[in-house]
């Protein structure tokens, strides 16, 4: 039989036992068989190695190497068997037309439109009631389910836990004193009592930076907010709410590591690079008689990223 005929696909059902399509694809099946056998043996050895590694509690890489190696050998052996030692084909199969005749389609349309539709046509009132019940069962089940998922946002979006007179404390709860920071230093603070709460960490987080007074540009209406060069900004990036965790001391920039927004701490934390659209809200500070740093009030605007209800 010529090369060409043997490459012409035949039907599996009509093929005879002597047909070249049923012969293995390999030119030298004995060699292939040996290679496959070696792969299976290697797989068995690997799996024994895996059991050993598991029993002696070996490191993860030994478990992975023996398991992954075994699976790989097994896979290569099996694929090679299928590719080189099994009937080489190619075989052909006819596609059957999936679609029905027009009569059959019409019969189905008829069942829906005439039989089903007719039922509704005759009982329009009942049909309307059924539709109404369905709509209500949807509303009655979906809305409460949705509503129980969480509280409504309301005021929580606009306030933090900072109050008039709140002491600024670090994460361990220690109050920040005016002698604690050298010029150019930074500390993350929370309102006292909230440093270990979820909301305190996620919403109230604020950075206090001590900057040299001569660098500082006072914003209008914020003249008293930064006593002794202590300036406080919300630590939530106004882009997507990541903590603005990097402080570039030389350039006096707060940098958000997520998307590289930069805020000028000497000038009202105005964004001067990156996707953040607004300055970081500033927390008005004062220093009390004992030298502790405290908040004059809450932030005057919502902290963090933008949302619809924000004006």
């Amino acid at each position, binding site marked *: 039989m010529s090369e060409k005929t043997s490459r012409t696909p035949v039907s599996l059902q009509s093929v005879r036992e002597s047909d070249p399509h049923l012969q293995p694809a390999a030119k030298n099946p004995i060699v292939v068989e040996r290679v496959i056998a070696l792969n299976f043996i290697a797989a068995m050895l690997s799996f024994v190695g895996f059991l050993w590694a598991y029993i002696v509690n070996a490191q993860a890489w030994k478990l992975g190497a023996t398991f992954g190696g075994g699976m790989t050998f097994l896979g290569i052996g099996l694929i090679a068997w299928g590719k080189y030692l099994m009937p080489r084909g190619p075989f052909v199969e006819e596609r059957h037309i999936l679609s029905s005749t027009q009569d059959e389609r019409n019969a189905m349309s008829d069942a829906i439109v005439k039989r089903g539709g007719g039922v509704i046509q005759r009982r329009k009132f009942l049909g309307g009631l059924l539709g109404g019940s369905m709509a209500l069962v949807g509303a009655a089940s979906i809305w409460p389910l949705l509503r129980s998922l969480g509280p409504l946002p309301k005021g929580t979006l606009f306030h933090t836990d900072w109050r008039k007179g709140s002491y600024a404390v670090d994460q361990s709860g220690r109050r920040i004193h005016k002698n604690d920071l050298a010029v150019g230093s930074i500390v993350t603070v929370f309102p006292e009592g909230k440093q270990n709460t979820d909301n305190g960490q996620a919403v109230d987080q604020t950075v206090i930076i001590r900057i040299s007074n001569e660098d500082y540009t006072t914003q209008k209406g914020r003249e008293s907010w930064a006593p002794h060069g202590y300036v406080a900004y919300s630590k939530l990036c106004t882009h997507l709410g990541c903590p603005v*965790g990097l402080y570039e001391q030389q350039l006096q920039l707060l940098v958000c590591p997520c998307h590289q927004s930069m805020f000028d701490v000497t000038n009202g934390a105005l964004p001067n690079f990156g*996707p953040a659209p607004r300055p970081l809200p500033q927390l008005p500070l004062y220093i009390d008689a004992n030298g502790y740093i405290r908040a004059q009030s809450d932030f005057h605007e919502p902290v963090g990223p933008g949302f619809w209800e924000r004006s």
Partner: protein
Amino acid sequence: MSEAVATKRAKREALGPYGRVGNVINELDERLGIAKGGRTFLDKIFPDHWSFMLGEIALYSFVVLLATGVFLTFYYIPSSAIVTYHGSYLPLQGQHVTQAYASSVDLSFGVRAGLLMRQMHHWACDIFVGSIVVHMARVFFTGAFRKPREANWTVGLTLLILAIGNGFLGYSLPDDLVSGTGLRIAYSIMESIPLVGTYLAFFVFGGNFPGTSMIPRFFVLHVLVIPLIILGLVGAHLFLLVRQKHTQFHGPGRTENNVVGSPMFPVFMAKTTGFLFLVAGVIGLLGAFAQINPIWQFGPYDAARISYAVQPDWYMGFLDGALRIFPAWSFHSFGHTIPLEVTIPAVVLPGIIFNLAFAWPALERKLTGDNAMHHLLDRPSFRPKRTAAGAAVLAFLIILFIGSSTDVIANFMHLSLNSVLWGMRVLTFVVPIITYPIAYYLAKEMQRAPGAGKRKTANVVTRSATGEYIAEAAPAYAEDVHHELEATPVPTFIEPEQSSDNGVRTAPR
């Protein structure tokens, strides 16, 4: 001959030519009627082209995901309760961490093979999503999505979205510093949607970020709800595949009305089972030798802390890149804010891309007026416009993906962050725009090449008796003579002109 041997033989003969197997088939068929359908199933023909295994990689990495994932659920505790860490990883000793984080570290170090399983699970996920994308590209560029397979394109695309979503949820469960930051960003993206954003974010996270509900909620979604949907859709995907049968490339004896390849049993079964082992093996080796997501180095999540130069898993990269390079255009008016700097890159952009992908089969049908059934695949070069459009979209996504590393690029190449950012902004527009014509004309050229779609033939040099050398191309391989290549009606949008000089016969419209 002893009596025992004789009875044995008699018994065997009584069973008939197919032995016990035949017996089992008979018994089963009497009750379930399996023989007819079973034979058809065993005889089902699978095309042999290598590109058909891309979907198999996805399927088998999903199998690995299920197996390793079940293992992980035995040890992972989905709770935000704070505990003091007392496990075997010394640097964390005595730290207050969530139970989710503590159990993730414990299952890595305290459970035999735990670290391997965790790393395999993570690698399998990255491979799962990756193979879906490559499989989808194959389906797109060869036109396998055309009538009658539009439904399967939709199912596949839904699977991609679910895979990305579930990957992100799973990445979030260890509650480490990096994953927590990712969740914070996801929260803010939800919050950015006009009108309903804050409600949506509060309902999904059970209140203001982070709260204590997200870990248990995302756990249930990650291990039960979404895997069940994926499993169901994978079933639907395979059912449609079997019912509509495979597409195939042009070749000898291949027509619109048949499928040529290897039978299900035993050839395809051997190859595909072997391939399952191979995929699991490669994932196992990756889990062994390539560290992924070392959460003990990142530390536990703390909403007031952050790490530097951390990127999300690769399939979220395009979103992160879009968020980085989109300008700070917030819109406020009438007492309301629309954070366009978030909404457009993170909500509108993926919305457009995925909806375009969903709509593409219908869109192409409309643009080309081609409503015919297609079972033979296109060579990408024979459909230059489609190929160029797909290449441009891919180029756009790849640039966004690279954009998710602006800081790392700036550091590594000693460039200013500003020039990298502006460079990426320019490339986002320029690269797709120049990709389209390049892909288009490349495709046209390839299509005109005399050997398009054929293997190269040898040049045979002969020396005549007089010493003259004559170079002559050897005849084409028998199967490369494209007399079977009955091109399907060529749509005008996809291929504007018929060329008769490219060696391919084009059927009349």
